[in-house]
């Protein structure tokens, strides 16, 4: 049995955006009651204040005695209210948009929203900001056996990637000029875990029905991040003295191949939950992804975002990262791997009455 990972945050207050979201919710839980499932606990006697969008479900956060500010990162007024009196605080910025209604929202929320927050945070003397980025600014690996490091150059993948790249560049410019508020950038790839949004449940359904489209050989690799693993990395990035001004990749221990992901989910559904899983029959040639990419680029150029086409366009690509830097500098040690993580995800789907 491994020991509990206790992360001590030296701050009177922790500010959290995206707190009602999928991963943000896990961070909120880790900060308040801890995540006993992965033996993660944040200590330090701080208060937690969350920024949530109007209309989001905040019952969980209320139960955890989190202070709630309602608003949007695009609105400077609410941003100022959110950071009011936050001298010496730690800000964990998880809010972002990945599947927007229109392409323009990418930059408004991901880029400008982050700049808004940082500006306000610097003004009130927030001590450290941890910003969630993504694999998308870096694009796809040039070879299935290549893994990105923190040194990999930008090569943004479409609208989302561009917005996160611009965000990172703005943050790195601040780091370069010696921002008094410390900045840490963390990048996570495709994540999975309990309380997933319904788009991920569709992924399970497709596998169960043998309809998951494996594009190309399926030997392309994907790094994935189990949400509680990521939560651990994010808290370590918030706490570790040497993290200031650094970028870290966070993910599960190793990347998985697409075949392995599909096979593992199939096994979980069948062996752990007794479902009948049809053998996967949808093997599409790589050209499908090429076409989808072309359609996606065209649509995004026209300002239209289509989730399914976008996801299909990425299917045959390798998006893999190396977490060595986080392991060495932060002591990051992901606890959950694919099989167990998928079992917990499916379990949570069923508990939340999402039919698979």
């Amino acid at each position, binding site marked *: 049995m491994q020991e509990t990972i206790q992360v001590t945050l030296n701050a009177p207050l922790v500010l959290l955006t995206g707190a009602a979201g999928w991963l943000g919710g896990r961070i909120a839980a880790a900060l308040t009651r801890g995540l006993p499932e992965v033996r993660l606990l944040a200590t330090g006697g701080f208060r937690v204040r969350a920024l949530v969008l109007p209309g989001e479900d905040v019952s969980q956060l209320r139960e955890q005695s989190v202070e709630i500010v309602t608003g949007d990162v695009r609105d400077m007024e609410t941003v100022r209210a959110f950071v009011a009196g936050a001298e010496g605080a730690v800000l964990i910025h998880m809010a972002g948009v990945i599947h927007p209604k229109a392409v323009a929202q990418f930059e408004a929320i991901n880029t400008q929203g982050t700049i808004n927050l940082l500006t306000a945070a610097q003004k009130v003397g927030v001590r450290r900001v941890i910003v969630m980025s993504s694999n998308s600014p870096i694009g796809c690996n040039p070879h299935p*056996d*290549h893994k990105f490091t923190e*040194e990999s150059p930008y090569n943004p993948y479409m609208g989302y990637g561009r917005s996160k790249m611009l965000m990172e560049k703005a943050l790195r410019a601040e780091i370069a000029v010696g921002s008094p508020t410390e900045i840490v950038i963390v990048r996570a790839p495709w994540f999975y875990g309990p309380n997933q949004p319904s788009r991920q449940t569709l992924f399970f359904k497709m596998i169960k029905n043998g309809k998951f489209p494996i594009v190309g050989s399926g030997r392309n690799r994907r790094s994935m991040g189990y949400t509680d693993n990521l939560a651990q990395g994010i808290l370590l990035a918030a706490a570790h003295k040497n993290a200031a001004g650094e970028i870290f990749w966070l993910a599960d221990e190793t990347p998985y191949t697409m*075949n*392995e992901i599909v096979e593992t989910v199939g096994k979980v559904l069948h062996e752990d939950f007794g479902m009948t899983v049809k053998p996967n029959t949808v093997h599409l040639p790589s050209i499908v992804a090429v076409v989808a990419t072309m359609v996606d680029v065209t649509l995004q150029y026209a300002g239209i975002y289509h989730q399914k086409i976008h996801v299909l366009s990425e299917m045959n690509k390798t998006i893999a990262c190396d977490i060595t830097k986080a392991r060495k500098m932060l002591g990051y040690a992901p606890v959950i791997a694919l099989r167990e993580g998928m079992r917990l995800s499916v379990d949570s789907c069923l508990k939340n009455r999402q039919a698979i």
Partner: protein
Amino acid sequence: MKGSFHLSNALQLEADAVIIGSGGGGASVADVLTAAGLSVIMLEEGKHIPSSSASPSAREAFSAAWRSGGLTAAIGRPPITYAEGRCVGGGTEINSAITQRTDSDLIDQWRKLNKIENFTPDELAPYYERAETAVNASLTPGPLGRATDILRQGGEALGWKVSELKRGQRGCKGANRCSYVCPNGAKQSMAVTLLPKAVDCGMRLLAQTRVDKIRIEKRRVTEVLAQSRDAGGQAVPVRVKAGMVFVCAGAIHTPALLRYSGPRKRIGDTLRLHPTIKATALFNEPVDAHQSRLPLAAITEFMPEQRIGGSIFTPAVFGLSLAEDWTNRGDLMRDWRFCGSYYGMIRPRGVGSVRPLPGFNEPLVSFKLAPEDWIALSQVLTRLSRAMFAAGARKVFPSISGHEGWTSPDQVYEFWNKPLPKGATNLMTVHLFSSCPPGEHQDSCAVDSYGRVRSVENLFVADGSLIPEAPGVNPQMTIMALAFRVAEAALCHSAQERARSAARDIN
């Protein structure tokens, strides 16, 4: 060598096992198999060069012991020149015999990435110990000379970790000719250690015998087809039937031979190497590197990603290194006693491939550096040059054609934030591996956790091709450790078990 013999006409041979290649991998397999009492035949493409006849002339030594008589280039931009041994003892006859283990953290990562069974650092430790004992891994006694001091002094002045390197030697006399076949037999290469031992146990070693093809029928190797030469230099076909076949021809020729013989999936798709950039440093005082041992310290501060060390130095090798850019560097030849040859090597992110070319002896090898590699190469060159100036260098010449060299430590940052010129940078390597990665992950692995080629029950890989990714250290100990492990596993798993596994492999 006792046991090797010449051939007169077509030969049909039979043995329990045949080993293709006599380098660190092949010799280690032979050690295990002969100890278990198996009858073993080893086929080696190159000649046997006893230390008594090792030539001090670079040209003769290279053509005798090096594949293609010296350097070969992997296609890419820029091409990376590489060297391989081709003689009895393989790469261990021409390397510097440095004995480092792979970082435990990397071993853990590889195990998880490829799902390699029984592959923890602890489980590999006994195999490493066996390899170290076989070559008498030890610190070289006596004064190491100025060439080593330069690295130590430079690294320490900058506050970096510097480590003394153990290597396989017994009574090194400092000929600084490690890469020509040691004239004193002091370097504990395979030709003076495991090979004579195996031959004493009855192994038949056929030198100058090149394997053309491995015949596979119904998931089983039936025979190995080779060409040998008789005393008169006439080609003699050789056919060997054996219960088990171990391919130990190195990271280039192992995948080429396998692909040519049938198995292809994931074979030769993941060649890795250590891209290395050299620099020549000119000092005020004589270095006289040719009279001392090769630099036996390395700057290990940035390991496993980057390492800074020193190269083998003789006037001829030095001249060859200057020949890359003779117009700008030729003058240094006059000052050769004042020069040292040092390098920075990186663990690359880029990947290469090996493909046999029908009708050619040498396969097509390509390697593409990834963007991260260019950043790392710039960094390591800068660091290397800083260390040289910190050790008192007067001038440092990076191995970039047309570069004028640096005369002061502030100039070395030229490439810190800027990529090296792709067309003019001369990169080389003597470390090649990873072209047949092992593991249970069938999507990514060419062979199983114990080196058995997928879908074939009695064909194994046991050489540098098995190292899952670039190890960041000299690979000989890892090659030997993995080869011992493959050979032991092959003995432990019954033929029936292996046949069952081969039938289960996905084609």
